[in-house]
């Protein structure tokens, strides 16, 4: 009887819990040999082994989904009215099964494409006659004008790049290693250098996150998500959408040039916001893109998590900042260690803990 009791205590996962009860009371129906066989490892170890198996499976899941490089550009589709850039051509040629543009799409392209000279004329005082003028914090040419201001205020350091472009094709995005996929990442300055970017900021980390991805008029992913979306249209306008407002099936025929899924949107009808579609609202390093008017944009990077240098901004403070910069639309991109700004291929801000690799960037090109 004592032996039976001992076995009952040791073998938590015995076949039959009622048998254990009977065993404890000394009225077991099982032969002694069978009971001896079922006596196993201590119960604590059973839980430890099960937990280890769960951890191993989670690790394999992470490896497959996030760490092992996986090209996901097979289903890339050039959208109607595509703005022709080097990246679009490259994406078109590399993507398998990319359908050729329909005549309707070609018509849309003609209708949606902005007058190439209009921004050049409108912002003529921002551009040079052809020569490239560079300083430590500015770059001016016949096509683009970039001026970066470093602001230190109330224990926070942030960088605002005021950007004018003569044509929408100078506002581009790029993937790490020129490939859209998971587990493919690189530092913002490195991706910027590879693409001859004048200025670049990290994007929405689309290789890791979910949601719609349109880059340089190429749709890489069309799965909807509960995050906010930010759109740059072919005509140079930008607009932020909540998930409820975002009707992708309609919008994709209206000249989408770039679509980012991350957020939250930082301005609503040009006004600062109080509530955000986001769970990470405390002070953090942050990256945002702002819109003034077609051809005029800003890139903003706020350093953070570095007491004495910069604490970072909450989403509410970020919203106030973009409002104070007079932006009409603004959108929060990936932040934390990802928040990086590169100017002329070199890191310009001071990212937390040396920064981190990302899957994509927004950049301004001059060619």
């Amino acid at each position, binding site marked *: 009887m004592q032996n039976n009791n001992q076995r009952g205590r040791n073998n938590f*996962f015995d*076949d*039959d*819990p*009622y048998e254990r009860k009977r065993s404890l009371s000394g009225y077991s129906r099982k032969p002694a040999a069978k009971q001896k066989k079922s006596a196993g490892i201590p119960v604590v170890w*059973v*839980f430890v082994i*099960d*937990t280890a*198996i*769960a951890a191993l*499976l*989670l690790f394999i*899941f992470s490896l497959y*989904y996030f760490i092992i490089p996986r090209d996901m550009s097979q289903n890339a589709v050039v959208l109607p009215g595509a703005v022709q850039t080097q990246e679009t051509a490259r994406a078109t040629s590399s993507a398998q099964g990319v359908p050729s543009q329909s005549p309707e799409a070609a018509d849309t392209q003609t209708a949606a494409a902005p007058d190439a000279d209009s921004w050049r004329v409108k912002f003529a005082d921002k551009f040079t006659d052809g020569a490239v003028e560079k300083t430590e914090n500015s770059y001016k040419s016949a096509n683009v004008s970039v001026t970066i201001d470093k602001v230190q205020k109330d224990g926070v350091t942030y960088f605002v790049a005021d950007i004018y472009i003569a044509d929408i094709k100078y506002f581009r995005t790029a993937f790490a290693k020129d490939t859209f996929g998971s587990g493919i990442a690189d530092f913002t300055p490195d991706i910027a250098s590879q693409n001859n970017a004048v200025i670049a900021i990290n994007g929405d*980390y689309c290789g*890791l*996150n*979910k*949601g719609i991805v349109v880059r340089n008029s190429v749709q890489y992913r069309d799965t909807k*998500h*509960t*995050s906010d979306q930010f759109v740059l249209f072919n005509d140079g306008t930008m607009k932020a959408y909540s998930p409820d407002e975002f009707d992708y099936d309609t919008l994709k025929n209206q000249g989408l040039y770039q679509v980012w*899924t*991350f957020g939250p949107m930082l301005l609503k009808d040009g006004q600062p916001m109080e509530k955000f579609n986001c*769970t*990470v609202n405390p002070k953090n390093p942050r990256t945002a893109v702002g819109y003034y008017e077609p051809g005029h944009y800003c890139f903003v990077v706020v350093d953070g998590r570095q007491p004495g240098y910069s604490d970072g901004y909450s989403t509410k403070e970020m919203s106030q900042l973009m409002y104070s910069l007079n932006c009409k639309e603004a959108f929060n991109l990936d932040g934390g260690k990802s928040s990086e700004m590169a100017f002329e291929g070199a890191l310009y801000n001071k990212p937390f803990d040396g920064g981190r690799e990302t899957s994509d960037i927004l950049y301004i090109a001059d060619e």
Partner: protein
Amino acid sequence: MIKRLLPHLCFIISLMMLTFYVVDIFNPGMDFLGNDIFKILLLIYGVATAVLSSIMIVRQRKS
């Protein structure tokens, strides 16, 4: 054999699902709860729990 494995299967999958749930709270952008793997786990968990529960109920009735 199945009777011995099912509780372990349920325990392992529940740990994985709880991990996905917690991580999703902190990083909803990665959409762990909408992942295909999560849906498969949910299916396996449902079937395993249903079988295990049935066995337990039948045993309770017998006892």
